[in-house]
């Protein structure tokens, strides 16, 4: 983790948050000012592309970015911090002598970009001396001058700060009134204004919006010395502030209220406070084999760790060996065409287009129009996630559109697209699924997570656990974690609810690379059942 990029927003201890921080701290009013003029961006981009070509580069792209962030952090009935940041600059990437070179600058002039381009070409030429295999870039047609915007209804940057603080105060009050001992709640708002141009003839202007509204509610029983937490069930989304409207039609009634395309944070805070207290006295789970019924608010993280990461092609090839690790899903398994990743019920797909998802953009950070493709079809491993310079290793000629950089100053590389589980084809509701489970646990919300460096062995916790006996939910249990092996787990998938239950979850701070870059990604699914999974009891006594 790059320590200079992280800002400690509040004091150490439970409330501490280390957040990615790039750029200058600005006034709220600057969040809504116009970005860089389109004609200026084109002029700067052309200067970069022409300079690169003149110096002998066979390919060049330039990204001109304005990245806006707003973070609002609260605890109980007080505001802890508000941070607004803006980061503006340009990154140029070139291929010269068959080798990549990259340079970035915040000198927003034609001279500035030309100088950065010369550095990028020089770096490429210097590094080419140690290059054994020249870069092979998949063909990509130019799109001319095009644009794309996240289809938002309410630009979160334009919502007054006071309204955001009032909302969080109401959320916190709702939890405290319902008996919470503590609550931390926050808003993270992101607007990436990025312009991409390449020697392929693309000039792509994109306006990307994302939002996250997490909270943690704590219940303390001082007498027994016990405490429990329940995190909010919101999901980070590629939507505007309308996500926080909490529309009735987006609510799913279960053991608690679950949320589809909008979120009622005040309601969830109250439920979280009640459930955190209930957890203090819940029965401790008896370890053993259980059939697990996993809600999408939980399953997204299991998909992320056990499908998303192992199918990143750079991991498979060994480029991440010293940091994130490698992958069990090796090329020979894929080439066999017979590798049974999961049961025949399991269809996992990648995409960068689902509405409301964190991965949704029109074009990736190397000018590839985004789309959707299969990773696992009827249980068989069929594809990976790759960029323009990687797909040739799979014998494919079109990039998957997985290139992303977290800032203008970072070099783009392969990042995870949305990876989701296709809903079951046959009609099946949650109630119908539970009815057939003899001995099971129904899990809601993501909790503790850990997986090995090749993505075989994992352990997951959750937020809420309900025991199922003979087709009925009998009550809450605690101290639950399940352990499995990726292939075994996905092969134990016996049922998936139909598309009516499909919901997105996601990660707002997914780290990869050295120096580390942060990315965001969504994972959709319907509730799914996994048979005979090993559940351990996590209760321990210390001194």
């Amino acid at each position: 983790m790059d320590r200079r990029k992280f800002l400690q927003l509040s004091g150490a201890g439970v409330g501490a948050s280390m957040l990615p921080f790039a750029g200058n701290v600005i006034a709220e009013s600057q969040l809504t000012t116009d970005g860089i003029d389109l004609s200026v961006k084109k002029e700067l981009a052309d200067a970069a592309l022409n300079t690169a070509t003149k110096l002998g580069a066979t390919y060049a792209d330039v990204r001109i970015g304005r990245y806006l962030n707003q973070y609002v952090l609260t605890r109980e009935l007080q505001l802890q911090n508000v941070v607004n940041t803006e980061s503006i600059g340009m990154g140029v990437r070139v291929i010269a002598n068959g080798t990549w070179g990259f340079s970035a600058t915040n000198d927003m002039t034609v001279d500035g970009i030309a100088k950065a381009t010369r550095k990028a070409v020089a770096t490429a030429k210097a590094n080419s001396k140690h290059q054994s295999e020249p870069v092979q870039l998949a063909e990509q047609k130019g799109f001319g001058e095009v644009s794309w915007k996240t289809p938002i209804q309410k630009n979160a940057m334009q919502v007054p700060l006071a309204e955001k603080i009032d909302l969080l105060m109401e959320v916190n009050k709702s939890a405290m009134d319902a008996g919470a001992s503590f609550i931390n709640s926050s808003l993270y708002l992101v607007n990436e204004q990025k312009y991409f141009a390449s020697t392929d003839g693309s000039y792509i202007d994109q306006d990307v919006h994302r939002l996250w509204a997490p909270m943690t509610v704590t219940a303390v029983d001082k007498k027994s010395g016990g405490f429990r937490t329940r995190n909010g069930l919101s999901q980070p989304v590629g939507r505007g502030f309308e996500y926080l409207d909490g529309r009735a039609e987006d609510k799913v009634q279960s053991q608690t209220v679950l949320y589809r395309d909008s979120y009622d944070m005040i309601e969830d805070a109250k439920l979280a406070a009640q459930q955190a207290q209930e957890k203090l006295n819940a029965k401790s789970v008896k370890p053993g084999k259980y059939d697990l019924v996993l809600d999408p608010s939980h399953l997204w993280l299991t998909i992320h760790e056990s499908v998303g990461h192992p199918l990143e092609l750079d991991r498979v090839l060994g480029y991440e060996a010293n940091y994130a690790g490698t992958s069990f899903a090796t090329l020979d398994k894929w080439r066999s065409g017979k590798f049974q990743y999961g049961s025949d019920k399991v269809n996992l797909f990648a995409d960068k287009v689902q509405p409301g998802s964190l991965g949704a953009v029109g074009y990736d950070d190397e000018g590839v129009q985004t789309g959707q493709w299969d990773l696992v079809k009827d249980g068989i491993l069929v594809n990976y996630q790759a960029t323009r310079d990687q797909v040739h290793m799979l014998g494919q000629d079109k990039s998957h559109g997985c290139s992303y950089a977290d800032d203008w100053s970072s070099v783009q590389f392969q990042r995870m697209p949305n990876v989701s589980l296709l809903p079951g084809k046959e009609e099946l509701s949650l109630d119908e699924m539970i009815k057939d489970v003899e001995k099971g646990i129904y899990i809601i919300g993501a909790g503790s997570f850990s997986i090995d460096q090749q993505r075989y062995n994992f352990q997951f916790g959750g937020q809420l656990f309900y025991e199922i006996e003979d087709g009925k939910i009998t009550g809450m249990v605690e101290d639950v974690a399940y352990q499995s092996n990726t292939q075994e787990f996905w092969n134990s998938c016996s049922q998936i609810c139909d598309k009516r239950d499909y919901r997105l979850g996601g990660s707002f701070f997914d780290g990869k690379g050295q120096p580390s870059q942060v990315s965001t990604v969504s994972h959709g699914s319907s509730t799914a059942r996994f048979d005979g999974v090993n559940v351990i009891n996590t209760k321990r006594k210390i001194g």
Partner: protein
Amino acid sequence: MAILTRSEAKRILDKVLKYSRADGASAQLTGAETGNIRYARNSVSTSGIVDNIELAVEARFGKKSGVATINEFSDAALEKVMRRAEELAKLSPENPEAMPLLGPQKYVDVNAFAKGTANITPEQRAKAAADSIMAAKKKKVVAAGYLEDDRSFAAVANTEGLFGYHVATSANFTVTMRTENGLGSGWAESDVTDFADMSTALTSGIAIDKAVQSQEARALEPGKYTVILEPNAVSGLLGYMMYSYNARSADEGRSFMSKKGGGNRLGEKMFDKRVHIYSDPADPNVPATPWSGEDNMALQRIDWVRDGVAANMPRSRYWAEKNEEEAIPTPGNLIMVGGDKSTEEMIKNTRRGILVTRTWYIRMVDPQSLLLTGLTRDGTFYIENGKIKYPVKNFRFNESPVIMLNNIEEMGQAKRVGMWGFSAMVPALKVRDFTFSSLSDAV
């Protein structure tokens, strides 16, 4: 070059503070030049240099405060950043936990700057990577590694007369070596102040040996084992514990340091009596910035755990005042006192046990007992009658560092490791009854 001298930094800080029209203001000037080189599959993949200098200004009106940052230092820019901070402060709600600005602090002298790192060249970086790759090729293994070197300074000042200046260098190198057949993997780290003290060839040699020796691992039943945890295996668990070691969360009843019935467990014997953990910004092995990041309070040498007893916990000024106790700033380094035995000697004294090179992907399972889960990685070996017998498959553990520090059999020499963004001295530990709960096929 991003390193300003003490007088250059002071001049900028004095000037920006003079523009203040608020009740009070503080400013922090930081700069760093960071170089890196990354390689994988025995070939360099990326390298770069990032140079950055930034001024952050905080303006105060009573309990209201606003922060603005800038990276240009003309008179006009300095005035602009102060005005912006003041504008933000006026707009912000009162922070009931705001504490007054500190007066002048007496910061200890810290020697954290080494010429070997300050003057590093791109050629040296390339050679560092090449030495590692060459060593790998010679032994027919595949290298992936990352070297990052920093030269940095920080200066702080406020309108109450506080001023501090600190320069530092550091270099961190990690390398993973994998056998070509994919059956063996080894890892090693070197974390130094002076790049001259770093040998990527030597560190790579350790990783290569582990990779070669860890091939064709056998499966042992999960369960409770005596383990020898090398410093990098200990640090992952210890780091989590010290991150949760805080007076406020303990007093609030939501920490492993909370006491049944209320209050905290300071003064209680929590660990084996040999456990001694402290911080000291002036420690020559792991020098650190002599003030805390929260409010520039001077850091001193302080014991966190002495003779196994919880002696002190970090306590913010706000929480200290509220509870009429002493404020204790959050440290910038950590030292756990070790013994004098080498890992080899500890192996010799072990009848049956498991040697763990490194722990990985550690996450909190239960903050109440500080139960953590994670995995062993890059060299796990079975020990019998004082010798390494054979490599074993990696394990997932579910264990609390509190229990680990109660079950110590023997302590090895301490080594400098990178821990949560700062440096720490951590010993190897021989621990009984360490809980492995399942096997992993990962190499």
